[in-house]
């Protein structure tokens, strides 16, 4: 039977998930396999090598590159303080001298007799990685980090900005198509991950920052608002490094978009629970979507079928349309015709026949424009 691989976003109330927590450079792992950790536990630590500052001694002291080593008054490997004299040369029969001061605190790392340069390395910067979610250390990657295993709810969004954060999930709307009024951003949202409905504006985001919310979850955002919020036009979808004071997770896309029913139902069930959120998105090699994680003791919703999107698209599969003109609609695959079919654009493409659940009947869509969902 015909089937096809269609990527889909994962939204599930209970699954085992693994979170890799890795240092950017090799360092020390502080926890052991099997250890139970909280989201705040520091699991690994390292020191990033300090910034490097080349100092051209030959130019500064006016000596040939081959002679610079002889001008050092502190040997290579020594620590130096900012403005400390570390090299000196005497001229005019020793009557005059010229010296070089260190531009920063650091260590004299190396010297070149070809270029006359000294490499000064600033002190290392400590880097710590926390566990991000409550769970158990499943594996230790020696010197690099750990894999944390946890069970619970997992929601992938389509796009986000801002890095990892945590907070109590708070629903500001009661239906997926509602848009939260800014007045709902009162003192109670401080430190919370707020779910704001079908749309979030630039103004709303700025008010959410003022109110101290840690993250905002919305169905859609206008690109114009995103640009106004960030202060620049987002070119390539590689995000997560923004330091806006809040993390934003968009579940559906750009524009006014009601949050998908099943996503909304799950968010509602998580109301009041502490969740971990990451807005980092990378829609290129090694795709990364923004996520909400919430460790749980057991399934939180009833009637959940935990089917896997990896089984592929086939008759009977539940899908959601991810492009105009039926964007956001849910349906069931009726068939996957093998023959190419013509669209309104006159393009001939592989299609899928979908029966929509809203009674609007059977529609033919490009296979590329649907995603598998779990119900």
């Amino acid at each position, binding site marked *: 039977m015909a089937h096809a691989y269609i990527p889909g976003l994962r939204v599930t109330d209970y699954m085992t998930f693994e979170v890799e927590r890795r240092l950017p450079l090799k360092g020390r792992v502080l926890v052991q396999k099997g250890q139970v950790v909280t989201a705040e536990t520091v699991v690994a630590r390292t020191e990033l090598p300090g910034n490097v500052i080349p100092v051209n001694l030959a130019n500064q002291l006016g000596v040939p590159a081959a002679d610079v080593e002889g001008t050092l008054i502190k040997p290579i490997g020594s620590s130096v303080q900012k403005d400390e004299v570390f090299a000196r040369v005497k001229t005019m029969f020793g009557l005059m001298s010229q010296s070089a001061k260190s531009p920063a605190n650091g260590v004299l790392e190396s010297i070149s007799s*070809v270029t006359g340069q000294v*490499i000064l390395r600033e002190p290392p910067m400590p880097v710590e990685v926390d566990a991000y979610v409550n769970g158990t250390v499943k594996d230790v990657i020696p010197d690099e980090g750990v894999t944390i295993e946890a069970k619970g709810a997992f929601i992938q969004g389509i796009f986000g900005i801002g890095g990892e954060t945590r907070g109590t999930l708070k629903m500001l709307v009661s239906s997926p198509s509602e848009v939260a009024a800014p007045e709902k951003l009162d003192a109670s949202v401080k430190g919370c991950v707020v779910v704001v409905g079908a749309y979030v504006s630039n103004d709303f985001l700025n008010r959410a920052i003022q109110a101290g919310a840690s993250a905002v979850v919305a169905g859609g955002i206008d690109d114009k608002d995103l640009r106004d919020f960030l202060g620049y036009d*987002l070119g390539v979808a590689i995000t997560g490094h923004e330091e806006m004071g809040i993390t934003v997770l968009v579940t559906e896309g750009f524009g006014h978009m009601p949050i998908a029913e099943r996503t909304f139902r799950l968010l509602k069930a998580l109301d009041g629970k502490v969740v971990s959120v990451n807005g980092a998105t990378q829609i290129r*090699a090694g795709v990364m979507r923004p996520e909400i994680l919430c460790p749980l003791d057991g399934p939180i919703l009833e009637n959940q079928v935990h089917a896997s999107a990896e089984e592929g698209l086939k008759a009977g599969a539940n899908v959601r349309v991810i*492009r105009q003109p039926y964007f956001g609609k849910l349906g069931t695959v009726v068939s996957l015709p093998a023959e190419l079919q013509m669209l309104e*654009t006159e393009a001939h493409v*592989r299609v899928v026949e979908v029966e929509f659940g809203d009674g609007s009947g059977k529609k033919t869509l490009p296979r590329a424009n649907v995603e598998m969902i779990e119900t």
Partner: protein
Amino acid sequence: MTLPAKEKILSILATDCGSTTTKAILIEKRDGEYRLIVRGEAPTTVEAPFEDVTRGVLNAIMEVEELAGRPLLDGDNIIHPQQGNRGVDVYISTSSAGGGLQMMVCGVVKNMSAESAQRAALGAGAIVMDVIASNDSRLPHEKIRRIRQLRPDMLLLSGGVDGGTTQHVAALAELISAAEPKARLGAGYELPVIYAGNVDARELVKERLEAKTALTITENLRPTMDRENWRPASDTIHELFLTHVMAHAPGYKKLMAMSEVPIMPTPGAVGLIMQTIAALEKINVVGVDIGGATTDVFSVFGETFNRTVSANLGMSYSVSNVLAEAGIPNVMRWVPVNMEEVDLRNRIKNKMIRPTTIPQTLEELMVEQAIAREALRLAFEQHKALAVGLRGGQQARTISDMFDQTETGATLVNMADLDLLVGSGGVLSHAPRRQQAALMMIDAFLPEFVTKLAVDSIFMMPQLGVLSTVHDVAALQVFHRDCLIHLGTCVAPVGSSKDGKDCMKVTLTAGGASRSAEVKAGDILVLPLAVGEKGTLRIGLDRNYDMGAGKGKDRAVEVTGGVVGVILDARGRRPFSLPADPAGRVACLARWNKALDIYPAY
């Protein structure tokens, strides 16, 4: 899979793993000739949940199986050699998935060795993330930070002519050493660094980099001021791409095991085919391959081949960056319907976050084709800036050079000398009507005088490029018969005047019949001329226009037919402009679209 003798090859399966889609084609020898049989495609699966490029490859092959009606796979293995109706004799692949090959290049002088190094990396099919030069405006610590941040797949260091000073190269090596650069994929392996500079500096470079990187030394790519020699560096890049980079990308070890033929970076394969066309027909060619993440431009003018890649101009992953770089007014000027800025922005961003979707409605198609024009235009601008003569060397200059104001480093891309413009990539190859591809290319590249236009029929140039290294006859047969679709000829005088004023009166004589037409300024018109036909076009020009013989001078030129025909473009060149007001713009685009029958009624 072992390669059978050439004469025994009856079937070839070729895949190209793009950043968005994996394409598979089946070629078979029928009646003594190699022909394309079917084509299949599937989303590329470098990403989660599979993180294994071979899943997408197998899915695309399954589609080929289904369409060809014969088995090619036994589980996850390609059946080979061909046994009756089952399997194929050869399997080959190209790849640009996983972001392609991402490199940094370093050279001493920005406009000389650094630029040569950039051309060498691009020629090998890489994306150049940054060019570090001793004389660029950044401070040393800024360069070090940049090298550390970028995490390229590979670094190419050049600098100095042979026998020249070694100090600057040593300084660059010291910067790289201080940065302790890490490779993009695979935390545990050392970054491959290629040194292709002054031979006298090799030891100095070794001392500084051998302990910290996987250093390979090759011939100087700029041995003298007036000579580039980037082939050895390019070959080394290709070799390291296979042994280092590909081996660490998700699923590539498996993919490499599936094929006896080395996997080639997609742009390298397309470049091979472009050079083949130019050499065979002795013409100047510009080719473009617009992908999901990147747009590659290739040019062959005379003996000089150049390739550039615009790493962040593309139709899916990079679509939003086209908007960011071109700006809303430039994209909107090609949208032939009234649309609000908010709507246009959201449509483009939605494509960015769901890059594998395709337009289902006409309006969505129009938006994609509008943005494609800007992606192509920007990529071509970047190409013209890099495809330049060698800078820094002494040149014999004639009096005419002085009058022409030519200088060393001037672009080699001269639209007036261009013979053939070839388009490839999904948005051009899969445009529902061929005239859409023709007009997109004309609008973006603005060819002048007489230029033939062609598109890759179903985007198979990458596969044919790699096939040409294994079976040149099969590659050329399929290229001529099934790959290239001749669209026709674009005739565009240089000059402009007010819309509706006189521009040109033409008479096309072909096959014993003649047809005359008048094209007013601001208009575009098509005269049918079938594929394979040639004709003579006599052009009577208004005094404001030039067809290469001088302003107002009449000309007779040979034109070639195609599926679109002879396109007479009197919309003006230098400058070419569109009405700024939305209503005027929509009306103007509607008129041109109607003249070329671009879209169904809308």
